């Protein structure tokens, strides 16, 4: 079991309110991702759930028990840190055994659990090495192993993949997702990377300045962002946000169109612009278009994403046509207009 309910939790560092009173429900077995720009309070929120950070006000409930005043170790949560936080003087085996040793678990039970964890995480060959002799990915797996053996009611991940290189990150992402399908334990995952959020989450919590901007499934967030911030934050490349005259044509303060919902032609279309940089990825091409005459904010940049390749180069004139049914409209407060 591992349902977590945050009830008006608030965090102040001195006079600075990092997290204004905030409510959130996490159901048992869910994979929840906290995502937001750096400094948005997502790690602080996670640490408050873990008990590493005191609450200024509010309550944390785990499985309907108020754990606000309960010590971190007794909350039944495991955490995986960005820096792995392995104990450098112990072997991998002792690292994984440490929480069980602290809980005075019998030695034969310990050995069996270590064996099982090592097998499922491909660590069997490294059990007698020290963390310093392992690669980043292996260290992260040891940290996960140490978290698994406690059989927690929920796993907390604090940006666990940020220190890995890109290729390894994709692999570890899959491993964590497989772990979740296998264990069916609640997982809370903090990241600033919206790709990780989109690919891994059952439920994404988008945070900005300690405030929840939107909670929803990845596709909900993609298709119906509640406000301009979520619209700009979710999706890569970023959504094009257009203000001014073009927006008022649609009775909105701001209109948004995702780069993949714009078609490009060299001969005719709704908006005209010149090609700046074209990024050819093979499967996709990102074209940065300037001088569109649209009010796209600072930088005068309109991004288009097309499948496959197109023969345009720097300075060429192109015509852009948005798919009207994919247009997002926002009012003066930045909220979505249905």
């Amino acid at each position, binding site marked *: 079991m591992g349902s977590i309910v945050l009830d008006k939790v608030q965090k102040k560092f001195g006079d600075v309110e990092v997290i204004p009173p905030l409510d959130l429900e996490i159901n048992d077995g869910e994979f929840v991702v906290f995502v937001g720009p750096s400094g948005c309070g997502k790690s602080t929120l996670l640490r408050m759930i873990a008990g*590493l950070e005191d609450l200024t006000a509010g309550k944390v409930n785990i499985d309907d028990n108020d754990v606000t005043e309960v010590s971190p170790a*007794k909350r039944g949560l495991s955490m995986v840190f960005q*820096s792995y*936080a*392995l104990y450098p*003087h112990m072997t991998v085996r002792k690292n994984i055994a440490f929480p069980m040793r602290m809980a005075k678990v019998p030695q034969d039970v310990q050995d069996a659990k270590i064996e099982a964890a090592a097998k499922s995480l491909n660590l069997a060959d490294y059990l007698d090495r020290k963390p310093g002799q392992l690669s980043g990915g292996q260290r992260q797996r040891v940290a996960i192993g140490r978290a698994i053996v406690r059989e927690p009611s929920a796993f907390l991940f604090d940006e666990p993949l940020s220190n890995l290189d890109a290729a390894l990150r994709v692999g570890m992402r899959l491993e964590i997702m497989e772990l979740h399908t296998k264990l069916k334990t609640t997982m809370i995952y903090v990241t600033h990377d919206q790709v990780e959020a989109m690919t891994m989450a059952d439920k994404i919590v988008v945070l900005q300045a300690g405030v929840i901007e939107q909670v929803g499934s990845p596709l909900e967030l993609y298709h119906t962002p509640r406000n301009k911030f979520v619209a700009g934050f979710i999706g890569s490349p970023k959504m094009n946000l257009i203000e001014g005259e073009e927006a008022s044509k649609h009775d909105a303060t701001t209109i948004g169109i995702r780069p993949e919902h714009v078609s490009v032609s060299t001969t005719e279309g709704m908006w005209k612009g010149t090609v700046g940089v074209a990024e050819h990825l093979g499967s996709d091409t990102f074209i940065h278009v300037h001088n569109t005459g649209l009010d796209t904010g600072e930088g005068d940049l309109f991004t288009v994403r097309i499948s496959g390749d197109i023969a345009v180069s720097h300075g060429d004139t192109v015509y852009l046509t948005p798919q009207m049914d994919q247009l997002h409209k926002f009012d003066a407060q930045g909220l979505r207009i249905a």
Partner: protein
Amino acid sequence: MANRTIPRLLQTPAVLLLLVWMLVPLGMTLFYSFIRYVLNSTVRPEWTTPSWSNWRGFGNYEFVLNSKDFLFAIKNSLFIVGSILSLTVVLGVLIAVLINRSFPGRGIVRVLLISPFFVMPAVNAVLWINMLLDPVLGLQGIAVGAINDMAAGMQDAPLVGWFFNLWPVLEPISFRATQTSAIAVIMMVTWQWTPFAVLIFMTSLQSEDQQQKEAAVLDGASRWSQFRFLTLPHLGRPMAIVVMIQAIFHLSLYAEIEIVSRGNGNKNLPYLIGEFTNNNIGAASATGIFAVILANIVAIFLLRAVGKTLME
């Protein structure tokens, strides 16, 4: 090859200077240790000048080995150094952990803690033996006297009087005595060198990874377990450094021994050398060579024990 000549030439003076500084004294010591050489002799005046014709072979070494103080000096050296090392490391770790927490006036406390290290060894010895440890005039004598007076005064008191009647009259300890002079030296040197250990351990504690501690908290580790399994192993390397450096320094203690008891009941090899140097330079040199050998044996053991920690 040619472009290496100039750097080597430029290094030469420094290297030569170092070699001369090391090899000349060592060579002279070796030479003196194999000849008869005394400072003053009316019977054999030819022994007062060093010369090959006074060759004595291993005679000086035999003389030193058979002298009654030699074995005692070696044992006592090891006892003093061992005691000081264990005391400074234990006290150093405890104090460092204590003042690593934040409390008002921490800066001042830290400066005061370091200050014993700036006291000269001889001054340290004089202060301790006269002002603190003296059985009559020192703090020890005054404290023991005060306790005795208090116990005597309480003997007639109701209810608790019987307890103070059982109280033995305390005798102040003379730290210049044969049995206690080594203890006095251990105390004063420990007082002086604990700050050094504290300083090194404190810097190391500040580099301890806080996320590891948080992970340990989540893993259910108590404060003691965190100290035992995280902090102590983290301090392994600085401990090795403290032990090595102090071992080198304390094998050559001299001023404290001289001031406390003039070697009464408390000698080490340097002190023995000092005693021989009053007249018998040959024996003093032979003892010097023994001291070099002892230092190397200690160094080998230390490097074995400590080197492993440093290599990791």
